[in-house]
């Protein structure tokens, strides 16, 4: 059973700091993951073999396995931040190694003997992949045509999956397949195909996909032609494949924010480095008021994604029955905001944002800009996999009636407790996941209470005014949602409404993080509440209000520059980097 304990938060992140220290300084060519090598491998579309081997030797995969099955996974924030450490160095490495977390998760949700078997597989470091999508069928998993004949003595799989990360190099794959020809959502089952068990000749591959982002990754297709595995390979009950996958996605969606944050960390690092050095006749970007406003807004966007990341992973622990909605809100707004940040910083950096390779550029470390454009391309992938933005918006539309349903809101302290810096969780309670929520998100429902709480006479006017603006928008959205016709194919207006709900949710996340952690945000960001004002003004701006005020953007940028100069990440969370 999941539990919140307090007073042990800082110690929880010790393995995250140790991982950061192990990975070393990416500017050092001898580090486990060096930027120079990452950029070179990416240009050659080459798989980062040495890096993956080193990370596996460290044992990152142990944090993918729940403690109940012998692994190290208790608090999911730990592996999430480890993935962020990888992604801020090399997104391809993070996606390639983290894929095992995705491939294994259905077994944790299904529980039982298959979870024990999966734990054994993951422990060995053998990559586990997730076979969901098929060529020509888009995002609609219920149209899967790969078949599984579930016999008493064996399971036979026929068909193919594409495009799949680690399709060729995986040791095993959790495959979604049709086990009942009558159709309907109970006609799909999950099968763990261990390549060591199936006859090798029955498994074939399609060529590596040439991709814009994640160039070096092993993205390819796999074909099963009468692949036979044992009867104990069915993940969960027969016919429950789609249900288990949809529940698993509720956990993996917030997890992808670790990838987004890693890319965002990299982008900010490059932009802050570049802004501090003179650029020919133009001087320093840090001395240009226009550039300063853009940079400050980019920092606000980064902090919004970090708030979404924290709320997403903590909600998975604290309110699993709400994840049907929360995971969709986080998975829509997180990548959408990261994409916006990259677009804005690309405009700011100009030609430098398009530089490829490892050539030295002025006073900066070689490969800085090559790494920026790699992160820009790679991070775009997050908005596409694990349910694209349209899929997530559709889920939000479907959930709106639940959010509107009258329900009591728990006391503020109870809503905020999971976000506190000293909160710690023992396990993910996957049995409490639900395919639809009963009352939407309690965090979103608490928005008016957050707004009142922040208007305490101590919080800056800039933050309170923006909070009030977002609070009014939420009230207006609820009224609008009441009139929304319920239909199986929502019209574009409903999608637009869902997008605005997601932004309001983003505002609620920032307010919640502030209320829960105001005293523990590391300096210099934590020295004032300017970060909150900037994030809320930015959210309000995206909803139609005025842009972030220049003094607010300026003050946030100053804090970010100080943090960056001290060698720290620009973060609201303390004690997750080796230097903290």
């Amino acid at each position, binding site marked *: 059973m999941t539990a919140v304990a307090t007073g042990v938060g800082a110690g929880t992140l010790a393995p995250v700091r140790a991982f950061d220290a192990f990975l070393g300084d990416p500017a050092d060519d001898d580090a486990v993951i060096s930027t120079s090598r990452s950029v070179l491998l990416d240009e050659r579309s080459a798989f980062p073999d040495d890096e993956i081997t080193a990370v596996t030797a460290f044992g990152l995969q142990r944090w993918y396995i729940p403690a109940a099955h012998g692994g190290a996974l208790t608090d999911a924030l730990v592996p999430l931040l480890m993935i962020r450490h990888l992604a801020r160095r090399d997104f391809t490495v993070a996606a390639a190694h983290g894929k095992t977390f995705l491939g294994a998760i259905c077994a944790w949700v299904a529980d039982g003997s298959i979870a024990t078997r999966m734990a054994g597989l993951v422990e060995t470091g053998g990559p586990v992949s997730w076979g969901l999508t098929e060529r020509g069928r888009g995002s609609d998993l219920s149209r899967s045509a790969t078949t599984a004949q579930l016999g008493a003595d064996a399971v036979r799989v026929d068909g193919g999956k594409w495009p799949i990360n680690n399709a060729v190099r995986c040791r095993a794959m959790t495959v979604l397949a049709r086990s009942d020809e009558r159709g309907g*959502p109970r006609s799909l089952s999950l099968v763990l195909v261990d390549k060591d068990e199936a006859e090798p000749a029955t498994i074939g591959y399609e060529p590596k996909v040439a991709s814009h982002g994640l160039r070096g990754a092993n993205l390819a297709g796999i074909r099963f032609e009468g692949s036979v595995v044992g009867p104990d390979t069915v993940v969960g009950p027969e016919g429950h494949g789609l249900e288990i996958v949809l529940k698993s996605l509720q956990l993996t969606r917030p997890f992808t924010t670790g990838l987004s944050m890693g890319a965002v960390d990299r982008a900010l690092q490059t932009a802050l480095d570049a802004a501090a050095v003179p650029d020919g006749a133009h001087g320093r970007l840090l001395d240009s008021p226009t550039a300063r406003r853009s940079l400050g807004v980019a920092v606000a966007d980064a902090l919004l994604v970090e708030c979404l990341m924290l709320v997403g992973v903590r909600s998975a622990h604290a309110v699993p029955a709400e994840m049907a909605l929360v995971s969709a809100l986080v998975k829509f707004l997180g990548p959408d905001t990261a994409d916006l940040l990259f677009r804005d910083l690309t405009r700011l950096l100009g030609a430098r944002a398009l530089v490829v390779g490892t050539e030295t550029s002025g006073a900066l470390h070689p490969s800085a800009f090559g790494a920026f454009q790699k992160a820009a391309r790679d991070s775009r992938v997050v908005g596409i996999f694990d349910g694209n933005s349209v899929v997530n918006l559709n889920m939000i539309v479907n959930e709106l009636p639940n959010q509107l349903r009258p329900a009591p809101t728990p006391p503020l302290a109870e809503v905020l407790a999971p976000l506190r810096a000293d909160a710690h969780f023992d396990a993910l309670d996957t049995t409490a996941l639900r395919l639809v929520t009963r009352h939407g998100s309690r965090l979103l429902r608490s928005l008016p209470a957050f707004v009142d709480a922040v208007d305490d006479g101590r919080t800056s006017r800039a933050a309170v005014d923006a909070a009030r603006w977002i609070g009014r928008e939420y009230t207006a959205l609820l009224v609008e949602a009441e009139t929304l016709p319920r239909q199986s194919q929502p019209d574009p207006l409903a999608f637009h409404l869902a997008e605005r709900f997601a932004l309001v949710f983003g505002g609620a996340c920032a307010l919640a993080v502030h209320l829960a952690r105001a005293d523990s945000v590391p300096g210099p960001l934590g020295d004032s509440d300017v970060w909150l004002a900037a994030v809320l003004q930015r959210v309000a701006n995206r909803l139609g209000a005025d842009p972030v005020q220049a003094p607010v953007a300026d003050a946030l940028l100053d804090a970010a520059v100080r943090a960056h100069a001290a060698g720290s990440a620009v973060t609201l969370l303390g004690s997750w980097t080796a230097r903290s």
Partner: protein
Amino acid sequence: MPVQLTATEIEQWLVGRVVAYGKIQADAFTIDTPLAELGLDSVYALTLCGDIEDEFQLEVDPTIVWDHPTIRELAEGIRQRAEE
């Protein structure tokens, strides 16, 4: 849920929901037509669960709609659930 509510009455209510959601004519299907063929995909069918909870004052697992894939079966499932 009123104990006297019959499966037929539940079926009629479900027909009304399906017509409203799928924007289809009531005479275009029967209570034995699979919901999946009525313009309600598997994920969207789950939102029916909320309506069922509100209408019949029940707490049901969302997958009740998957486990009872026609209006006739679903009405029977709801009736049984209400009796528990």
